[in-house]
């Protein structure tokens, strides 16, 4: 049998605690990690705390799934349609229903017309993509973003993801530091945050895109930034 050894650095690099708790280690790896953590205060605490926390999580997950199962009752098509059909068969209800149906048809026609117009406008909106200089490269240089007012601008900037943060938020600040826009970022792996901006709502000038990491206790810390100068072309 091959004997494996693991030191603390290797345990950290290989995310040994999480893999051990998730039972994703081979027998040899598990043995090596056990030998390590029985003599390492930090890993010993991490493993036993993780086990305790997983146990608590298991109970909560069970409660949550029971609650969902009890509250969400999906009615069958028969259950949903039968009361409606029985109501329609009455003469007064039938008249009211006919009037309502005519109104709905007229309203739908109007909506379709409006949507067609909007769609035409959307298709006409030009889209621009810019990558701003991130913190790692100084973040001093402001990128010139020259677009039409009706454009859609996609801004990308580097940021530092870390296990300390449970979510991330992007803010667009103007020269005076006032927040013009704020949006929660989707949880997508990678170190590039992409934010879609409608510049028509902004004035020409210099702006900063700031990425904030939010910790479990709700506090926020800057984890990325990039600047841009907005200019409208005709």
């Amino acid at each position, binding site marked *: 049998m091959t004997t494996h050894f693991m030191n603390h650095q290797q345990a950290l690099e290989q995310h040994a605690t999480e893999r051990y708790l998730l039972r994703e280690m081979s027998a040899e790896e598990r043995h090596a990690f056990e030998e390590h953590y029985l003599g390492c205060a930090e890993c010993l605490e991490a493993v*036993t705390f993780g086990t305790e926390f997983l146990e608590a999580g298991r109970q909560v997950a069970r409660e949550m799934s029971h609650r969902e199962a009890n509250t969400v009752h999906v009615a069958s098509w028969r259950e949903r349609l039968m009361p409606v059909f029985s109501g329609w068969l009455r003469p007064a209800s039938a008249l009211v229903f006919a009037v309502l149906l005519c109104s709905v048809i007229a309203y739908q026609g109007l909506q379709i017309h409006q949507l067609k117009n909007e769609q035409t406008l959307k298709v006409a909106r030009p889209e621009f993509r810019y990558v701003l200089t991130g913190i790692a490269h100084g973040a001093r240089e402001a990128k010139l973003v020259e677009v039409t007012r009706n454009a859609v601008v996609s801004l990308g900037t580097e940021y530092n993801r870390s296990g300390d943060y449970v979510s991330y938020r992007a803010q667009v600040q103007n020269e005076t530091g006032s927040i013009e826009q704020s949006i929660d970022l989707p949880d997508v792996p990678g170190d590039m945050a992409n934010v879609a901006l409608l510049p028509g709502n902004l004035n020409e000038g210099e702006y900063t895109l700031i990425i904030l990491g939010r910790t479990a206790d709700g506090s926020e810390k800057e984890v990325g930034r990039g600047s841009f100068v907005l200019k409208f072309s005709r």
Partner: protein
Amino acid sequence: MKRMHTKIRPKTGIVLPFLLREPSANQAGSSGGEVYCLRPSAVDLYPFDEAYLCRLRDRDAKTEDHFVAYFNNLLKAKLRSDGYSESALNDIRQETLLRVLKAIYANKIQNPRSLRSFVYGVCERVEWEYDRGEWPQWQDDHDEFPDVSDDRNPADAPARQAELRQIARWVLEKLPEKDRKILIALYLDEKDRDEICVELGTTRDNFRVLLHRALSSARKVLSRGASS
């Protein structure tokens, strides 16, 4: 089949090392000059020595309580990682502790500092026997041993468990819906991991990342609570 727990004496003041708060005067237990402190960590790197083994051989109640609580937690972590169900885990854990105590009483432990490794070695032997179906032959005549069941909790253990459940719920509720579904699926452990990946459009690496974040968040909440 659940094994019988033998109890040789009424429970005395029980002191466990894995409670959240720092010890107050009435929480710390002392035994023959030795004080078992209540620490915020789950299991610490307790320095086992010959004096500790002597106290166990002398049937010192507080030392026995410490021994059982300490290794119950440690063995739970090991046996969960080895993939045993709750009832198998309890059987293996009890048999392991009884065999270790037997070795201690027979003065067979050469190096007290390596007690943790010794316990793991015995546990692996017991696991092997269990997997071979030999567990019905395990002897049940453990009357001279202390109670090694997991139901002798200290008075504030339910409070600790409730607190952990509250934090686990808080951590789950703070997660985006997709991540929450993944973590719940992992916790419930009813489906194959690859099936979860396909169903929820994720990767196995993401399980690890999510668990890491959940543990970090919980730890932060706990340390904040302990320091306040």
